């Protein structure tokens, strides 16, 4: 009898370990699957309809690198942000962070004027932008989330209005800038999907690699933060400290993606939620790579569609905003039905 009990105990332990193993394996398989699709799309993007390799490859290659960077930055920052704010509707862009980046950039152009900026190196300018962005994003975040228990929808609405405020103010300042200065700087400063800001690739990659290395060790703590603030503190996570550090990382990531392709409001929301649904796990070590791969697939695939099917007659951000907006409405209405 005793022997039997002992045996069944070990059997249970074995099956638990096995189950764990199996789950891990399936998570890895899912990641590999996503990576294969992403790789295939990138290969297709690089090689489709090439007539002059020497001309096409470097240009397309730069575009792909930009999309990889943006995809990773948006996915990572959105997942991280959703974890520390403990919900699945808010993303940094929905509460207006990327419009804030554009505003900072415009104000800098306005204050310094075109000539000073033209002489200043792009890298330096970018670093100044990012520094200010980290400062203001942390301030805005702290101000918004200062009071606990603030209604989530309230935050979203405030964020959206902030986005409009920053957006209007940016256009306003752009009109105030001397038209000559503005045309000089327009291409350099205000990117979109169709004109990716490729000059910044080097420093953007450096920034992303740095903050990623810095923040990799947070991933495990973030798993715990998912349990809620009080639980996490109970389990020994220095919550406030962690949130502050994450905000810095998020601000840098948002700066990079906005500097490269401009604001894309709903993209982070889409890829983060798709990743949760597909991976079915709480582990950030798997969710973040999955979200990044999904966003790379969406970007490269979307860009292929835009370039080959629509032959440039539409822009990727419009499609993303359309689909993302509908998805957001769906999430919102589903939540209200549940209450």
């Amino acid at each position, binding site marked *: 009898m005793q022997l039997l009990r002992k045996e069944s105990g070990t059997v249970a332990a074995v099956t638990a370990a096995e189950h764990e193993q199996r789950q891990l394996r399936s998570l890895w398989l899912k990641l590999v699957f996503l990576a294969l699709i992403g790789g295939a799309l990138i290969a297709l993007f690089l090689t489709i309809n090439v007539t002059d390799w020497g001309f096409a490859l470097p240009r397309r290659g730069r575009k792909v690198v930009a999309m990889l960077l943006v995809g990773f930055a948006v996915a990572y920052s959105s997942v991280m942000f959703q974890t520390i704010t403990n919900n699945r509707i808010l993303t940094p862009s929905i509460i207006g962070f990327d419009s804030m980046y554009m505003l900072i950039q415009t104000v800098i152009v306005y204050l310094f004027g075109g000539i000073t900026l033209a002489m200043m190196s792009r890298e330096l300018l970018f670093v100044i932008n990012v520094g200010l962005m980290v400062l203001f994003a942390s301030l805005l975040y702290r101000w918004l989330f200062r*009071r606990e*228990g*603030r*209604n989530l*929808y*309230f935050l*979203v*609405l*405030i964020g*959206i*209005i*902030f986005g*409009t*405020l920053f*957006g*209007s*103010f940016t*256009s*306003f300042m752009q*009109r*105030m800038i001397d038209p000559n200065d503005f045309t000089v700087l327009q291409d350099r400063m205000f990117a979109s999907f169709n004109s990716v800001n490729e000059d910044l690739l080097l420093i953007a990659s450096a920034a992303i690699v740095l903050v990623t290395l810095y923040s990799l060790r947070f991933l495990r703590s973030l798993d715990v933060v998912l349990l809620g603030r009080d639980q996490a503190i109970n389990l020994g996570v220095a919550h406030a400290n962690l949130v502050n550090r994450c905000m810095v990382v998020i601000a840098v990531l948002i700066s990079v993606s906005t500097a490269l392709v401009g604001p894309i*409001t709903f993209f982070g929301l889409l890829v983060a939620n798709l990743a949760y649904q597909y991976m079915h796990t709480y582990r950030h070590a798997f969710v973040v790579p999955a979200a990044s791969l999904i966003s790379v697939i969406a970007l490269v695939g979307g860009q292929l569609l835009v370039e080959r099917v*629509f032959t440039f*007659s*539409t*822009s990727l951000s*419009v*499609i993303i*905003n*359309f689909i993302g*907006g*509908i998805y*957001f*409405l769906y999430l*919102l*209405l589903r939540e*209200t*039905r549940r*209450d």
Partner: protein
Amino acid sequence: MKRGSFVALLILLVLLSVVSLFIGVRNITPWGLFQASEDQLQVFFISRVPRLIAILTAGASMSVVGLIMQQLARNKFVSPSTAGTMESASLGVLVATLMFSSASVLHKTAIAFVFALIGTVIFMRILEYAKYKDVIIVPLVGIMFGNVIGAFTTFLALRYDLLQSLNGWMNGDFSGILRGRYELLYIAVPLTIASYIFADRFTLAGMGADFATNLGLNYRFVVNLGLAIIALSSSVVVLTVGSIPYLGLIVPNVVTIMLGDNIRKTLPFTATLGALFVLVCDIIGRTIRYPYEIPISLVVGVVGSAVFLFLILRRGVYATA
């Protein structure tokens, strides 16, 4: 006191209107008007006067429309720009331009009106579907709905190379107002008067279908009339001026905070304050970067979103307390 402040507002409006007539690149002075040259007079009557009329009409009617909308939806944060009405009207204008390239202004108005009406009705339906009608959720859904329609409109515009004209009517701007190109706005005048006549009935309708019917009100008729006024006024403004963000939202709210909810009393106030607000923003836009001009939608966008933020934050204070 209320009467006094109303008169003060009116006097201020008249004063600023006169000021507005004499701002511009072409130097025209009030005392020089009588010995003005031929082309000075032309500038005055072809550009300045129509512009002033357009500002006053658009400001007053959009604010009143916002007031009615807030009454009917029973939510303080609903307005043509937070419920998809403006965006639907723009889509309508685009579709009209695409399908009937030679469409007259009246045709375009009709199509924009139909789209604005459908858009607003869909929004009201979505509201009925959401069981949990939080004060905040309603405008949130409306803004998102507007975004989706806006993205679709941009998609169409990009496809048919109309993005530039689209931006033209998406961004409200009074600089294009000239004699012969704004007269459509006059439609908004009888609509505003009709809202005043029906003001009491809108107040009743705002109390809910059952209650209103109990009091002997033809509920469906009043609601449909309200929606028609909203859609038609918005379309006319979008077609002539372009969309002006937050206008129908902040003006009625400020008036309601000061004067309460009886819209028969607040409506004249709302109309006056709306006209005044747009006039002031337009004067700012015309003088801040003189001799260039900043479109009114940007000035209102900055001022309006700041005021809107203030309004919800103020609400938030006692909602969480």
